[in-house]
């Protein structure tokens, strides 16, 4: 097909980039090629434009080596995440009452004093049962039925560590828990929970018994469920740092947990050790991704 045998310089200018990019059909491309051979100005234009394209092409960045492994890693974490749904929010008062039943005789006066401080909306204020106290939980094996027994004890700032006064059905064998009531061992603001070997954020005591800090614990508090292999897992998280988990086989594990909103890390403490999860919390969804391996949530 013979169209124009010559093409004007003006026309060249408007299609030169298409020529460079290989977007012209062969006839048009041939016309441009011939013109460039003959016309010095257009040849210069072509060379300049080609240089620009080449220069821009040289500027490509190589993606960082961390990109692909980072993506695959994040992807795997997401795949292994557990999504717990909140079913109802229990009041902190109920949780405290349950704990009180278990711990007969431990400074009952102090406990009752703590209970009295609760207002009607128990979950709006944190329940600092005892001023400056650190809440420990210790789970122990129960021999016959496979249920974990649960002891809750508190170190009290007045030094009344009542290890002997635990609930009647505690197991004699597994013990070894020592915790300190020595005020010097308790750092300002953060108290070391010896069985957990981490610091719990003890709610700051204030005159009317409400806590200054504990927002993540108050938001985590409630009943959560998670579909599991053959049923549902129920997890009760209490504002005071204790939890109770019933798996789909009916086995109950109780202990204490630590949650750091900043680090987005959640740790369950239980007799066999500790299970760490990365977590994110929205109103009714708690997403837990195991930090390593399988844990309590299955």
């Amino acid at each position, binding site marked *: 097909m013979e169209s124009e045998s010559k093409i004007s310089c003006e026309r060249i200018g408007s299609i030169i980039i298409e020529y460079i*990019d290989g977007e012209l059909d062969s006839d048009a491309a041939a016309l441009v090629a011939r013109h460039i051979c003959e016309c010095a100005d257009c040849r210069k234009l072509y060379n300049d434009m080609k240089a620009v394209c080449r220069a*821009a092409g040289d500027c490509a960045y190589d993606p960082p080596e961390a*990109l*692909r492994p980072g993506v695959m890693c994040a992807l795997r974490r997401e795949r292994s995440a557990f999504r717990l749904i909140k079913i109802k929010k229990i009041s902190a008062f109920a949780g405290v009452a349950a704990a009180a039943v278990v711990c007969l005789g431990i400074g009952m006066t102090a406990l009752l004093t703590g209970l009295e401080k609760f207002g009607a909306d128990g979950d709006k204020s944190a329940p600092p049962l005892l001023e400056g106290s650190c809440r420990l939980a210790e789970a122990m094996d129960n021999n016959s039925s496979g249920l974990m027994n649960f002891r809750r004890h508190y170190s009290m700032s007045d030094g009344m560590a009542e290890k002997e006064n635990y609930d009647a059905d505690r197991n004699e064998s597994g013990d070894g828990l020592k915790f300190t009531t020595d005020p010097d061992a308790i750092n300002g603001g953060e108290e070391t929970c010896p069985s957990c070997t981490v610091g719990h954020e003890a709610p700051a005591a204030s005159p009317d018994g409400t806590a200054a800090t504990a927002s993540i614990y108050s938001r985590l508090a409630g009943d959560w469920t998670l579909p599991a292999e053959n049923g549902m897992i129920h997890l009760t998280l209490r504002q005071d740092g204790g939890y109770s988990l019933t798996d789909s086989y009916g086995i109950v594990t109780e202990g204490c947990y630590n949650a750091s909103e900043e680090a987005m890390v959640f740790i369950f403490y239980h007799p066999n050790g500790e299970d760490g999860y990365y977590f994110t919390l929205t109103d009714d969804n708690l997403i837990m991704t195991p930090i390593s391996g399988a844990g309590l949530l299955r």
Partner: protein
Amino acid sequence: MLPDNETLVALMKRAAAGSEAAFSDIVRYFEKTVYNLSMQAVRNREDALDVSQEVFLKLWRTAGSYRGECSVNSWIIRITRNTSLDLLRRRSARPTESLTLRADDGCGERGEEGAEREIPSGGVEEDPVASYERRERIEAVRCAISELGEEHREIIVLRDIEGMSYAEIGEALGLEAGTVKSRLYRARNTLKEILQKRNII
């Protein structure tokens, strides 16, 4: 080079079904595109890496909703543009972190320690002087590109760095063929003027 779209669609289907291996291939094919597009939009390495990882995570999560209405290439480019925009919006909501550039300011892409200096090496035996000159030149061109408007930077990345055809660019950006050509023409012309003024070409 990218495999053809049919191959990519098949990979996306497998990824949607949960195949990490298939998805890993997709990441490998597209990481350069995604990273370069993010980089031109957000202008620093850390944010570009964040955006890129977010793009691929989004791609993974929504792999099931890709129905082949556009090429996989276009799909990924759109996700990249949206994710970069999100970051820029979040960034502009925090005025203390602005990374605005002025044309006479020296250079564009800033990491924490100043100008980005990621330059691919010239090879094992490159002469040090030539190597230095090449690095300086690449920096100067990057600087010039960073002074272009956003649309021009974007189309230069897609055409000159990624080698996409006009049709592919049109599909990815939602543009008519004529618009692709005119935008590319203006982008290259502007870049040419800057580079010529600075005696880089």
